[in-house]
């Protein structure tokens, strides 16, 4: 059975070109970039090229890029590193819809005496910027707000937020893991101080990521040890991963147009067909300000995990915000923060496409979805006929 992969916000396929560039760095060019000999040292040059490629995609200086082990480490470093560099300030502002890599860190800091403000969102999943402005005070060390939401694809007006936060002299971090490679973004004239990216969300391998640190931003290192990454992130470099991330960023820059035309067309086709063919369903999130690849739809009276398993039988991979799908007993914190009723949150399903998605795959899913929904609704005690 052919796999139809519509779960690209969870992880992505490593691009063939990325793998090709990585290959020599396992068994042939396996040297340590810190070594004095040519054999090791030459990999250091390759890392420099990778750093330049990442910087080119982001529109920043190569020296502003720190390689990490992934999005979670980038987020942890940004938050903890900022607070450690600023021990006299004790307040953090974030949102209720952040990824756990940010939210869990903030809540843990609360246990250490920090004040954490989690901004609410409206029904569209958008923030009240006036509320954010009110919350920023002299005690505020950091504002951390995601660029785009992983579950709904809702994009926040990050540049506007960064400008406002910078105006108050507070450090601003954004988790841009889902945004990079999907929407155009340039840090050259931006007020963003810190920005997290993850390799495996943009067709690089898992286990590598990067943190953009604007020149002049004070940040204490989280990982201590060797002098790698100019002392900002110790540990021998994940050379193949970094090479892969560099290539993936180059490809992302080339494909950003397609992402916003081809991928968006396919997403819209899938979304419109499901909304039209399946009764009692709703779209979750701000339709205007959204990633081009993501759709999050709630189907009333049925449960998300059951939908996922039915799709799985046809080889279709998707994701759900239902409680059962997450292994917890409560549905998605993002959908709940948006005021999506429990019933609709339990029946939510997310499709996230990529440039490797094909129209036949979309058509096949469109064909199967109404069948699955009908089958499960026949079982549901809440459907009265």
């Amino acid at each position, binding site marked *: 059975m052919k796999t139809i992969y519509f779960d690209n916000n969870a992880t992505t396929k490593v691009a063939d070109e990325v793998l090709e560039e990585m290959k020599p760095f396992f068994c042939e060019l396996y040297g340590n970039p810190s070594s004095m000999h040519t054999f090791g040292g030459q990999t250091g040059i390759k890392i420099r090229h990778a750093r330049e490629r990442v910087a080119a995609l982001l529109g920043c200086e190569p020296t502003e890029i720190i390689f990490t082990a992934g999005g979670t480490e980038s987020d942890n470093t940004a938050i903890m590193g900022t607070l450690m560099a600023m021990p006299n300030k004790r307040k953090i502002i974030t949102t209720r819809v952040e990824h756990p890599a940010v939210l869990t860190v903030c809540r843990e800091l609360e246990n250490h005496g920090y004040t954490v403000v989690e901004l609410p969102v409206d029904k569209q999943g958008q923030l009240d910027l006036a509320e954010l402005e009110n919350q920023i005070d002299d005690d505020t060390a950091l504002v951390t707000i995601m660029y785009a939401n992983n579950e709904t694809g809702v994009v926040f007006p990050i540049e506007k937020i960064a400008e406002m936060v910078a105006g108050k002299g507070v450090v601003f971090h954004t988790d841009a893991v889902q945004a990079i490679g999907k929407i155009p973004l340039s840090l050259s004239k931006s007020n963003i101080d810190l920005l997290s990216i993850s390799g495996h969300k943009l067709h690089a391998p898992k286990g590598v990521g990067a943190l953009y640190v604007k020149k002049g931003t004070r940040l204490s290192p989280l990982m201590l040890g060797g002098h790698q990454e100019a002392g900002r992130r110790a540990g021998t470099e994940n050379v193949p991963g970094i090479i892969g991330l560099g290539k993936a960023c180059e490809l992302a820059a080339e494909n950003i147009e397609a992402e916003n035309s081809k991928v968006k067309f396919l997403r819209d086709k899938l979304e419109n067909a499901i909304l039209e063919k399946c009764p009692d369903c709703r779209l979750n999130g701000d339709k205007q300000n959204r990633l081009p690849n993501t759709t999050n739809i709630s189907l009333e009276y049925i449960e998300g995990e059951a939908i996922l398993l039915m799709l799985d039988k046809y080889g279709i991979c998707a994701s759900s915000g239902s409680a059962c799908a997450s292994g917890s007993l409560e549905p998605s914190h993002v959908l709940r923060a948006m005021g999506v009723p429990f019933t609709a949150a339990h029946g939510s399903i997310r499709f996230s496409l990529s440039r490797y998605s094909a129209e036949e795959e979309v058509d096949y899913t469109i064909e199967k979805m109404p069948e699955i929904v009908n089958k499960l609704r026949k*079982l*549901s005690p809440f459907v009265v006929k």
Partner: protein
Amino acid sequence: MWEYTEKLKEHFFNPRNVGEIKNPDGVGEVGSLACGDALKLTFKLDENGKIKDAKFKTFGCASAIATSSVLTEMIKGKTIDEAAKVTNKDIADYLGGLPEQKMHCSVMGREALEAAIENYQTGGRKKHELEGKVVCNCFGVTEKEIERVITENDLTTVEQVTNYCKAGGGCGGCKGEIEKIIEKVQGDKAKAAAVLAHPKVGKLTNIKKIQLVQQTINEQIRPALRAHGGNIELIDVEGNKVIVAFRGMCAQCMMTEFTLKDVVEAKLKEFVSDSILVEEQGDSTKLPHNHRG
């Protein structure tokens, strides 16, 4: 990804006995849309008092649907007395086992069956209703129900109880109470499994006291408040006086249900020192509110 047995998957993809029997002899309903799963069971008896037909309708995940399907298969041909003996464990075993976190699906099946039998016997309520003291407010689970899953499945930890009947799986505020119920039912067996959070220390230095106060707030108090959109912040410790501020929705809770200050003080007395006194910071309304709205 869940590790479901082939039998479970087979029943999920091809559920037996879907629907509702017209003019049934017994009807049982449990769960709700909000809880994430719900089951309506109907059955009809033959002239010998045996279950001739049983049908179900289920809202829920694959394991909820499969457990409902096997439940109808299991009770067909049984007398009411025989059916009444079916436990959640029987249902799970029939499927070749369920993932631990999905055991509550089998409990839901047993509850629906009980409600349907009671409806047949008394003609009364069809809904599985709450009896006795409610321990878990998030999922509406009573002390009686918790005791029952502990006994029938020989559970010794809070995590297991959550997996079997959802109690404690929301805000987590009732975990302490669940622990006490486990101890009551299982006696020494529970004591062996439970790890004491922090035994009260005799003499406390100021630093130790502050750390213990913060730890107690973090572990014992904040999780429950957070679930209701509230929060608590430790402002200062002066001798035995602990000054806190309530945030968000907590002010409202204080006026209605119970005095948070008393709860906070009781917990701190229990975990830190008997001489702790709690005061609320006077001007807390002017401070920023967390979790607003």
